[in-house]
């Protein structure tokens, strides 16, 4: 034990003074009364009944001396040296993965980790610094090199767990970068459940790493997969349920479609086993959900979502007086819904195909495939077709056996991309080109060519449709919590809104060419993406599902194998622990006791 202000011990000089003052004869006032006859027994009673008869004079003195000693010591700021877990420079890696939401530890593992973190913060040595890193899929620094215990505790209180898994390799790399130059008294402490990705890719640490496990083995059933497949013409939903608990458990899985319960299935699962559940998807169902209603230690993995296959349809309008080859080629495009008409009428279509019909002029901004648009153009006989080499739109398109009889001479725009040129007696002319990013033009009538009869035709139509048709609004129908989702808005969309599973919404204005990644996928559930296009809206949905054994496996990991460089020294720290507060409170309590004893007349 030591004293931070040893000079304060000089106040001990007042103790002899207290003793001297106490034993000075007490000055009493004189008073004549009618008779002392009844006062004498009162005095004798006090003397006879006092338990501390011999100490009657000195009890108050003793209490006063103890209070004075307590106060003097408190002012001298004593401290005791205790062994501390934390070093001079410590990085706390706080596990905030979905596993930490398990309730095997009351109220949950994350709260237990918070308590442990605060305990370690209280052990931070005087002059020490601590950094706080949240261990998630993308670890983030909450506080760096803080010497204030209060600030660290506040940061711990503000931390929240996520639904996804955690990347230990990244977390340790981040921690080691924080301790660069401070390795001598550096230390990393991991507080968590022990199940992380990247465990096999950890670079050796330059400082010692301590692991504080949180949690206990607990029963947990999880939905580990949920998807849909077309089986013999019937759309089926398949869910895999896994038992991560230590004992055989009955698994009841409910299948919901568009918010209505469709089916329930039950199976027994041995520990570590997985079983498949399947249901037929109702016609016209859009959103599907599987639920495990029985409560267990982790509720986060008891639900999963999926979208009924085929909801993403491309709508194509063919304006033609009749072209069965063209119609068939368009119908072969996956996900295409082809509508035919003899005349143009604007509607809600992804692609308009004008077969020898003049497209509308003016402000019409739809995507178009024009086949030999009419106009005063010269006709020429075509010889050899010269394709543009290496163009992706011509991939797998073999023109060796394609012949074109007559083509019209058109004047493509200066920025046109010529895909096919044709040799004629008067020079080469464009046969197939694109303009901008929303128009493809054939300079010849399909009837004037044997292209529709060749294998190249449907391949070419697929390539052109893939380029012309707008992409799916999201680049993946399903992602894991914390993963980003690419949003691909319609080229003419002006606003994009994303509605989260909790009902909240985020939105922003869109400019052409923007393909923003969406990062707020922390919560499992269905997310709805809505675009404002022209006068209407277009919607798409994607699911965020927790299919991660790293999160669902609640088995505690007693030790973490983290490689450490040979030069990393184990840190044994002693930290001073303030005890002056206890002495101060004790002294105040003694003062109160002294007042009470005095009032009692002891």
């Amino acid at each position, binding site marked *: 034990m030591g004293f931070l202000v040893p000079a304060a011990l000089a106040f001990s000089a007042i103790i002899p003074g207290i003793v001297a003052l106490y034993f000075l004869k007490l*000055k009493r006032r004189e008073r004549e009364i009618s008779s002392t006859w009844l006062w004498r027994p009162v005095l004798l009673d006090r003397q006879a009944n006092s338990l501390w008869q011999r100490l009657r004079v000195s009890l108050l003195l003793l209490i006063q001396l103890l209070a004075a000693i307590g106060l003097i010591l408190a002012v001298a700021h004593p401290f005791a040296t205790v062994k501390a877990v934390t070093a001079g420079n410590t990085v706390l890696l706080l596990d905030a993965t979905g596993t930490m939401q398990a309730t095997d530890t009351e109220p949950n593992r994350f709260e237990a980790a918070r308590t442990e973190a605060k305990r370690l913060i209280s052990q931070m040595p005087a002059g020490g610094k601590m950094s706080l890193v949240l261990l998630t899929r993308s670890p983030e620094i909450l506080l760096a090199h803080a010497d204030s215990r209060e600030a660290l505790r506040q940061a711990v209180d503000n931390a929240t767990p996520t639904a996804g898994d955690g990347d230990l390799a990244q977390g340790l790399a981040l921690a080691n970068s924080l301790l660069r130059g401070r390795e001598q008294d550096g230390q990393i402490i991991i507080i968590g459940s022990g199940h992380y990705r990247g465990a096999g890719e950890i670079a050796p640490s330059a400082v010692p790493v301590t692991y504080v496990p949180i949690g206990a083995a607990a029963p947990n059933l999880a939905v580990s997969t949920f998807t849909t497949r077309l089986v013999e013409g019937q759309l089926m939903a398949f869910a895999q349920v896994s038992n991560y608990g230590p004992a055989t458990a009955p698994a009841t899985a409910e299948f919901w479609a568009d918010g209505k319960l469709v089916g329930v299935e039950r199976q027994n699962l041995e520990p570590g086993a997985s079983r498949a559940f399947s249901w037929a998807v109702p016609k016209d169902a859009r959103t599907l959900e599987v639920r495990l209603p029985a409560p267990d230690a982790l509720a986060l993995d008891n639900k999963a979502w999926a979208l009924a296959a085929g909801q993403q349809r491309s709508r194509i309008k063919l304006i033609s007086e009749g072209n069965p080859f063209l119609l068939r080629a368009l119908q072969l495009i996956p996900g295409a819904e082809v509508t035919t008409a003899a005349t143009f009428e604007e509607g809600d279509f992804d692609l308009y195909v004008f077969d020898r019909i003049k497209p509308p002029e003016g402000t019409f901004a739809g995507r178009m495939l024009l086949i030999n648009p009419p106009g005063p153009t010269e006709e020429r006989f075509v010889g050899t077709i010269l394709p543009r080499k290496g163009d992706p739109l011509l991939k797998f398109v073999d023109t060796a056996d394609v012949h074109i009889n007559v083509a019209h001479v058109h004047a493509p725009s200066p920025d046109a991309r010529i895909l096919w040129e044709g040799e004629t007696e008067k020079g080469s002319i464009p046969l197939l080109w694109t303009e901008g990013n929303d128009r493809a033009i054939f300079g010849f009538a399909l009837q004037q060519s044997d292209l529709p009869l060749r294998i190249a035709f449907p391949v070419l139509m697929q390539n052109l449709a893939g380029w012309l048709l707008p992409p799916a609004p999201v680049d993946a129908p399903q992602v894991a919590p914390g993963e980003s989702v690419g949003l691909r808005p319609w080229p003419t969309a002006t606003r994009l809104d994303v509605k989260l599973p909790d009902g909240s919404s985020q939105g922003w204005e869109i400019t052409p060419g923007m393909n923003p990644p969406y990062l707020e996928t922390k919560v499992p559930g269905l997310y709805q993406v809505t675009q404002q296009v022209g006068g209407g809206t277009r919607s798409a949905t994607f699911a965020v599902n927790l299919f991660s054994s790293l999160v669902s496996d609640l088995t505690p990991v007693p030790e973490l194998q983290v490689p450490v460089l040979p030069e990393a020294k184990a840190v044994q720290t002693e930290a001073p622990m303030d005890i002056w507060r206890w002495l101060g409170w004790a002294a105040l309590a003694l003062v109160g006791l002294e007042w009470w004893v005095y009032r009692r*007349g002891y």
Partner: protein
Amino acid sequence: MSAGTLAQQLGYSPSFLNQLRALVLQNKRMLPGPGAGRRRSPRAGSSVELMDYRNYVPGDDLRRLDWNVLARLDSLFVRVFRAEENLLVRVYVDVSRSMDFGDPSKFALARSLAGAVAYMGLIGYDRVETAALGGPALQIVPTASGEPGTARVWSFLANLTPDGRGDILRQTVEAATRLKEPGLTIIITDGLVDGGLTPTLRALLAMRHEVAVVQILDKEELEPSFEGDWRLTDAENISRQVEITLTPVTAGDYRQRIAAYTQELRDFCRKQGAGYFLVPAHTPLPDAIFGMLRGTLAR
């Protein structure tokens, strides 16, 4: 000094005295008196109340023979009639130094009470003896009767000073045995004597007196309000001192003591058929006297 002046000195208003004139001291038992009067006596006399019969002896007044008994029993019996005598009232006032305490002083009330009780006895044609106990020597006014004796009694009381340190028990016995008739004895005191008042009362009761005790105490004696470190000196004996630190606890202990003492006196008097009255010193005189008299002393 005239009775009127003495009445003022003792705090009696004319209306107060008028009220006293309407009252008569009431005794519980038949007591023999020193002379003829209007109270029933245990002795035989010449009132009209037949008390008993006895055999005729030569010399008896023949008018007392009961002729009916003679006719029936052929025996000579004489009728015995009860005597009517007056009452001997003894009024004793404590003049020890402890009575000179409080504001208003206990002695002032004691003296006024004594004068009022004596007045009632005098105008009721009882014989009243007044004495001061606790002084250096017993001071006593021989018996008087009738209103003319008022001035003498009041003058005696008015000239008393509470500065005695005498032995109350010894002086009480000395006073009580001066006259052989027992009578009604009213003792007005604070009762703060060593050993308590009980021995004095026992002595009076042993002499077959009918006793009434009026104990007067000041509010500071009942509920001391001073706190802190004190050296308390006994007014009657300055060598007796008590050093005490008065805290709520010690004050509570004292209050219990005084309450126990007054209760002890009350219980003793009740068991012995004596009267007991505790009168705080600040009680106005009319409230004190009429409150007492509503008890047993007046009808």
